[in-house]
């Protein structure tokens, strides 16, 4: 089981208004990120967007630790506002011709 420890439990963290640590024993950083992302989604939580998780040795072995939290309504509202802004900004963008060549072929 890749998620080996969660502290505090989501309900308790919610009650206390604090984020929680989610430890994964996945074998590398990007596998651990994926497992923690999946777990967060199942719990209705969001992961702090670290791209390099801290590695530490615990009673559960070598783990990578993600920080997760329950997004407040204001965060969702802010995202909606930002998305509306993106859509507004795109209205003035003209259509362009596709550029297929990547950086190494230019």
């Amino acid at each position, binding site marked *: 089981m890749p998620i080996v420890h969660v502290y505090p439990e989501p309900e308790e963290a919610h009650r206390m208004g604090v984020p929680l640590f989610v430890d994964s024993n996945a074998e590398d950083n*990007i596998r651990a*990120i994926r497992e923690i992302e999946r777990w967060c989604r199942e719990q209705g939580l969001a992961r702090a*967007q670290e*791209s*390099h998780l801290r590695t530490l040795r615990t009673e559960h072995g070598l783990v990578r630790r993600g920080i997760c939290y329950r997004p407040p309504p204001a965060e969702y509202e802010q995202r909606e506002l930002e998305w509306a802004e993106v859509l507004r900004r795109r209205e003035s963008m003209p259509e362009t011709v596709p*550029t*297929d060549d990547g*950086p190494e072929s230019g």
Partner: protein
Amino acid sequence: MPVPLHPIPAELVLDTSVVVAWAFKEHGRVASAESIISQVQAGSGRAYVPELLWAEFQQAAERKLHASWAARDRLGLSQPHVESAYQSMLQLSAAWLTMLPTLVEPATRDEAWRLRLALGIASYDAHFVALALLYGVELWTFDQRLCSLASADARVRQSLRLIGVDV
């Protein structure tokens, strides 16, 4: 809610070609790209991208800006338009894309190297493919050349989803 043009899976890797098509409204691709990005934004699926997406995106943005004068009427964009696309990409990446390190991650670094040597695909592309293989998800791309080169490897071929032109 209308049926999306391209329903996305629960998890996928997005190629730079998709976000560039979205940000710069590329002809023949924009409807598909908007469909995909809108689903990611709505939480229908989780989109993973390597951090070097930014390098590719900036390269594409710079090309949109500095298209030759001869081609400017059909390709070139003004600085404000490029800045606008850049801002949209910033907001997209901050909120809805999961950025993953690549070059320092042995799991993708070594697989990307193997793919580059075996298939002759570009290093940047190889990192996207390696990430998709590692996660066992599809890489969604508009890049026909990548798909053509990758077709020599059955495992890679199965992990690629070539998005067709808008219909």
